[in-house]
């Protein structure tokens, strides 16, 4: 599983327990519980999976099996600005591939990785259903449509700038 060991604080463990309790500690609600936990913590490291497995009386392997099956769940923390590039067919035929390589080049990371400063992470997703805007890039909740490789630098600067402004507030 993940290489870095993390210590969960007592209140964090209690929070996970609360999510399980709200779902009646039902093993059938595992996916819902994982959704809520990931929303809270941003990712699902091994230590969190152990807490959930213990609480629902399930083998950790089972929880791990579910976490790794679904692409929505991640065991690596996302960057402050998660960048997702749509690689659905409409985006693909309109040049998503080139946009993706530009992001890889400028951030110097591969898909599924987070930049060393923890600012940006890069992922691909399959169709956000905005094919009219192809190719589409998501930065956090913000959607950018009809992106060309030349726009990539600006997008990164805009996100970085937003953070600086946010810190000043």
């Amino acid at each position, binding site marked *: 599983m993940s290489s870095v060991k993390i210590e969960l604080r007592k209140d964090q463990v209690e929070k996970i327990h609360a999510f399980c309790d709200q779902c009646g500690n*039902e*093993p*059938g*609600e*595992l*996916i*819902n519980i*994982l*959704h809520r936990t990931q929303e809270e913590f941003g990712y699902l490291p091994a230590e969190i999976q152990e807490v959930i497995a213990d609480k629902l009386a399930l083998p950790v392997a089972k929880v791990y*099996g*579910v976490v790794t*099956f*679904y*692409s*929505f*769940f991640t065991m690596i923390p996302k960057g402050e600005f998660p960048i997702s590039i749509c*690689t*659905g*067919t*409409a985006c*693909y*035929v*309109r040049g998503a591939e080139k946009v993706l390589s530009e992001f890889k080049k400028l951030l110097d990371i591969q898909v599924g990785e987070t930049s060393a400063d923890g600012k940006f992470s890069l992922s691909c*997703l*399959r*169709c*956000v*259903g*905005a*094919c*009219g805007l*192809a190719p589409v890039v998501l930065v956090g909740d913000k959607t950018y449509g009809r992106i060309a490789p030349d726009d990539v630098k600006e997008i990164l600067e805009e996100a970085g700038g937003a953070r600086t402004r946010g810190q000043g507030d």
Partner: protein
Amino acid sequence: MTNRQLRIALRNCGSINPERIEEYIAGNGYLSLGKVVTGMEPKQAIQLLIDSGLRGRGGAGFPTGLKWLYAMNSEADQKYVVCNADEGDPGAFMDRSILEGDPHSVLEAMAIAGYCIGADKGYIYIRAEYPLAIRRLKIAISQAKESGLLGENIFSSGFSFDIDLKYGAGAFVCGEETALIHSMEGERGEPSLKPPFPAESGYLGMPTNVNNVETLANIPVIFEKGADWFSKIGTEKSKGTKVFALAGKVNNVGLIEVQMGTTLREVIFDIGGGIREGKKFKAVQTGGPSGGCLTEKHLDTPIDYENLVANGSMMGSGGMIVMDEDDCMVSIARFYLEFSVDESCGKCAPCRIGNKRLHELLDRICQGNGTDADLERLRNLGEVIKDTSLCGLGQSSPNPVLSTLDNFFEEFESHVRDKKCPAGVCRDLLEYFILEDNCVGCTACARACPVGAITGERKELHVVNTAICIKCGACMEKCKFDAVVLI
């Protein structure tokens, strides 16, 4: 884009406020539910649906009424109605639009299904990637409950029905109904062998009826206007309309709804406004990763379930991606295969291993290392995967490869025999070349080249030595005169 279209499933999308139940009711909403639960026997209602000829819009096109009949005939204390809103085909977004624009039509249809098969509980299995649709559904469910259209004793008929949401977590295979049910139970979304069908043993082992969003959106109107009205629309075996998500290289992109039997030419050229930038039409991909690529010769074929399958594609959920002369069909086939390889759940060997091998073959061909024997292998392996996979994903994943082999064989041949990519897409098969007419001899390219592959005197034509060139593209980026081209 509005003429030539007939909106049944999308009838309310964009014209009512989806967050106000009053607006849905004003357009005869929930009238059909009232009519069915107070005045019709379940059998009678199912017969009406069978007579209408409605078939599942999620892909395979199974008659919806028959599905309900099987679920009704299964005896159990508890049954379930499930709405499949795990729309995962890249390039398809009709379900999202319906859920965001007209959520009540889906709820109403689920309640009718519940009454007919004898279920009092419904679930909508929806992708977590659709936050707006989730929000609108939550609002719609609570409004319907407040108005007494969901919950206990609906229309004082003694029939009760409740709906909850279940969230997907990003697995394409969960659109397959047995995999969807496993996912609802909190398991890995792996499909299981049918029979038993969900109508006998589904969610928590109980009889379960699973319908797709667009299928459900048709149902309230069918009960309002009658089976005859619906069965007059469309072709002999495919009734009604189909929503398509038109995208790719057409001028007008977006959702369209046309009668079954409309031709591809009408969709792409009349509604879609033709190909962008006056380029030449090459292919249209229907049915997503399970479908195939159709070409010029299929443009006048009426679109229905049977015709698409006969031509090596399928209806699928209704994604329709148009491609022009700049698209390489070999790399398109590889693109779809990559998707299937990523999304294969890994349970059965033909899909898990076979698709991986297919993808490697295509990779080799795109890199210029393919042989004639590889083309043979592609076809044989594709057929075996289709015949032996466990679920719909594997049974249809070779379609994009087989249909491009059928329709664009010459393009495969150029990749294999001439080591050329006619569309100019496969980078490994292309070479950098400097155009004599454009080159002014500024030396910018030669200075940018990291391996010294470009030679030429100042103010004279420069030349690329393709034997040394590493195809990094630095020369092309630096050239201000568009003199460097890939051919």
